[in-house]
């Protein structure tokens, strides 16, 4: 440990002569393969539990932005989807996501995933395969979390879980196989560092399909007028956003996938900085724009601005300079401020703003990658965005329609008016309060 401290102190001095830095790093001896294995695995574990905690962030954000009569339901959906995603990713998801092909469209390895045995460690792989599986699994859960917020307050719990079952066991893994699983998008040069498209747009498209097919909440758009349905708890929504922001350091930072060399851990650190800056810019832009447009700052859009900044930088959190990260995140924040009322005009009811935040900012973040990473061809980025959009919209729509026309997706009007805490869960989140 002391040796590392000495090295980093030395680097700090050298940082004054920045151009020489890369050269100097190469001269520092990297740790042994065993040490690298431990450090890489540690990165997956720390990143993994940070991303796991994002499930809590989504749960609190959504609990705060739904009306008080649907809060228990939203909490139930969130803990349920996280658990279903974990099981499905072991049963079949991982095996579809990493089928072991090159340049392919669909493949499937042995399933369920053979987890490593007690005491087993293959130093050749560079990390514990169980830590890798865990890290990949929590990304899968994130994708499902995105959907629950958009279609909140009007989808029954079982139909929702069925959708999550297919999303996490099939739709998301196929998309991942195209890029991170060395499929055809990867072969054509497409780049998505931590998943602006693979995770966030996939969740966003699935949410959009749901919002279109399920329809808006009762009374939301009546006679050309928008009925505002304010959220039940701004403090919870704020806490949820901060939790997501924290989790994102795992999401982006650990997507470096290695911490066993001096240059890797340095890059992880750079990713932390860029990730934070993009979120900060998203907030500040949302604050300025809502003040200018509406004469009052909208705190919920400021929260969305943070998340849009984070999603925007996720496709490439390493190569941008700090000012580039601020620009990328700031434009993400602007996208949210303009897209939220636009969706209302189109009568697409997105309760928490997940479509602007995850889908639109995800597309923006993916397309802007060549701006800071000139090795990435723009055409490949565009192809990835379109291909994932077409595939996820198509498969999600089929599933949503299939559920709608079989067991049904919505509660009755009476149940929806009463609130799903009473009609479906039987436990009110705030029993002492009047109905919202």
């Amino acid at each position, binding site marked *: 440990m002391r040796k590392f401290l000495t090295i980093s102190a030395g680097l700090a001095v050298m940082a004054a002569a920045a151009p020489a830095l890369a050269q100097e790093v190469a001269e520092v001896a990297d740790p042994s393969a065993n040490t690298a294995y431990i450090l890489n695995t540690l990165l997956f574990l720390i990143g993994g539990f940070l991303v796991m905690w994002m499930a809590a962030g989504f749960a609190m954000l959504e609990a705060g932005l739904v009306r008080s009569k649907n809060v228990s339901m939203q909490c139930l959906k969130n803990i349920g989807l996280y658990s279903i995603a974990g099981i499905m990713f072991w049963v079949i998801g991982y095996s579809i996501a990493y089928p072991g092909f090159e340049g392919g469209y669909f493949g499937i390895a042995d399933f369920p995933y053979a987890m490593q045995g007690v005491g087993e460690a293959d130093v050749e792989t560079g990390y514990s395969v169980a830590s890798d599986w865990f890290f990949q699994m929590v990304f899968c859960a994130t994708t499902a979390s995105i959907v629950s917020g958009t279609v909140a307050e009007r989808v029954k719990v079982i139909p929702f879980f069925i959708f999550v079952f297919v999303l996490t066991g099939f739709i998301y893994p196929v998309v991942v196989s195209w890029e991170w699983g060395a499929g055809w998008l990867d072969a054509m040069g497409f780049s998505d560092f931590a998943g602006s498209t693979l995770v966030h747009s996939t969740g966003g498209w699935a949410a959009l399909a749901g919002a279109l097919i399920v329809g808006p909440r009762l009374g939301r758009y009546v006679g050309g007028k*928008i*009925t*505002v349905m*304010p959220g039940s708890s701004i403090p919870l929504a704020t806490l949820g956003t901060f939790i997501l922001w924290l989790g994102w350091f795992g999401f982006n930072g650990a997507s470096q996938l290695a911490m066993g060399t001096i240059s890797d851990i340095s890059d992880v650190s750079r990713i932390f900085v860029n990730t934070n800056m993009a979120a900060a810019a998203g907030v500040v832009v949302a604050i300025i724009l809502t003040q200018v*447009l*509406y004469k*009052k700052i*909208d705190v*919920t*859009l400021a929260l969305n601005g943070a998340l849009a900044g984070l999603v925007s930088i996720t496709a490439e959190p390493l190569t941008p300079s700090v000012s580039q990260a601020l620009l990328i995140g700031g434009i993400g924040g602007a996208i949210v*401020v303009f897209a*939220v*009322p636009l969706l*209302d005009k189109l009568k697409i009811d997105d309760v928490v*703003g997940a479509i602007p935040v995850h889908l639109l900012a995800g597309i923006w973040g993916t397309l802007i990658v060549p701006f800071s990473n000139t090795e990435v061809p723009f055409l490949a980025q565009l192809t990835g965005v379109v291909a994932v959009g077409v595939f996820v919209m198509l498969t999600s729509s089929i599933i949503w329609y299939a559920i709608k026309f079989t067991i049904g997706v919505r509660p009755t009007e009476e149940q929806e008016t009463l609130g799903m805490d009473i009609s479906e869960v039987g436990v009110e989140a705030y029993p002492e309060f009047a109905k919202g």
Partner: protein
Amino acid sequence: MKFIIAIIKPFKLDDVREALTGVGVSGMTVTEVKGFGRQKGQTEVYRGAEYTTNMVPKLKIEVACSSEVAAQAVEAIQTAAGTESIGDGKIFTLGLENAVRIRTGETGDTAI
């Protein structure tokens, strides 16, 4: 005996309580309420969509007192709750038939 119901601005509660105890009122009941009068509520923007908050939060104060104190109590509330702006509230005075103190069974003026 009289029964006074006053709707006041929430932040005026302490002033009103002080004024009422000053004229000899020995108890009151307070409830958080919402409603509208001439103060129609206001237009706000939530996530880019305008909406009107048509119910304004207020406090409802209920006071039972002897007929002799009632006029002073009403004046005390009016002075203490006033801000000379719209939405200061209203005071209603009703006749009160009887009052019973549950613990002792006393009735009428001695019970309040």
